[in-house]
């Protein structure tokens, strides 16, 4: 059976368009981990409480994204949350006494790690650890503290 050449061309275009759409969805819409292996070095951060931080959350400095959260673990002895982040290779001159805090983007947005650069001349290396950290703001705790302080104020009167 001979099929018309135009039919073949159309089918070829259709299949190509379908795969192009899938590729577009993979590249543009989702962050496919396969192509997204950040070339960088790993740094560990210790937090008392990471709130709702999740893997693949952005790591920023001065608001610019410089890496991503790679893994989140719990230290079984100190009960600290150990967050491993991958920082892009281009930013290899981050001072060793850099601090880290967990913030929320917008009121209901996702949580991210912000690095505040320090002033030392020694730079972070692969496998280093940042201990100068500020935990995530947990809303319930904040409200609890606020209510307690309200109660204290009432007693004074």
């Amino acid at each position, binding site marked *: *059976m*001979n*099929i018309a050449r135009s*039919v*073949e061309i*159309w*089918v070829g*275009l*259709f*299949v190509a*368009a*379908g*795969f192009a*759409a*899938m590729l*577009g*969805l*993979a590249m*543009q*819409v*989702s*962050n*496919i*981990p*396969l192509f997204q292996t950040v070339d960088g070095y790993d740094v560990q951060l210790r937090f008392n409480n990471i709130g709702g931080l999740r893997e*693949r*959350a*952005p790591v920023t400095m001065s608001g610019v994204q410089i890496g991503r959260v790679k893994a989140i673990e719990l230290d079984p002895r100190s009960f600290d949350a150990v967050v491993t982040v991958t920082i892009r290779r281009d930013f290899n001159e981050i001072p060793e006494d850099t601090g880290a805090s967990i913030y929320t983007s*917008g*009121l*209901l*947005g*996702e949580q991210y790690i912000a690095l505040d650069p320090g002033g030392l001349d020694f730079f972070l290396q692969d496998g280093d650890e940042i201990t100068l950290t500020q935990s995530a703001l947990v809303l319930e705790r904040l409200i609890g503290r606020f209510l307690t302080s309200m109660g204290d104020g009432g007693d004074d009167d």
Partner: protein
Amino acid sequence: MTDFFSRIGRSTLGTLARLGRASVFLWHALVGLPGLILRPGLVVAQIYSIGVLSLIIIVVSGTFVGAVLALQGYNTLVNFGAQDSLGVLVALSLLRELGPVVTALLFAGRAGSALTAEIGLMKTTEQLSSMEMMAVDPMRRVVAPRLLAGFISMPLLAAIFSFLGIMGAYVVGVGALGLDEGPFWGQMQSAVDFRDDVMNGVIKSLVFGFVASWIAVYEGFDAEPTSEGVSRATTRTVVHTSLAVLGLDFVLTALMFG
């Protein structure tokens, strides 16, 4: 009274018999699939009539579904100051649900009904029996290529649908409503996971493609060989495919995201 129960019994037995025939039919069609390697032309011709000719309706509805989602989502999200999440909302709804499901429903109306009518008419005009006379197995020659073509076309159509939907939402959200481009894509990329969202959508549309083309070819093959029978079979294809797709979608969603 006995009349009433005998009617229930008859319809139950009839349904069961149809299910059994459909399964046996599917088995015969699947057995015919490997032979298609030698004759890929048959499948290409079917992909043309099932996939390529469905493109226009998929392109138009995908774009507009995305655009409407963006408009509606924006009006709700802006109340919470969360309009930056519009990209996430549109991408997740399209990839997880609307892309596969709406494509399958459109597919049932556009391609499934045509398949049923075509095979039903072949049966009515005794083309199928003449094929058998010439020792050509209609299962291999007619049914298997159509089944395979539907199975191949559906995920491609669904991917095109979702992609164009997101593009439509981009045009409306960033172009017309004045959202910022950065958060639109950025939040989408950090919220949409390739395996959990994109691949699960593709798996859904593979299942829908299989079920939709199975129902379509079976109804055509099982149609009463009269013009009335073909018309009833065509209606049944659209109704049964839509119900099966919606029911399966619930099950698949519960399995994947539940």
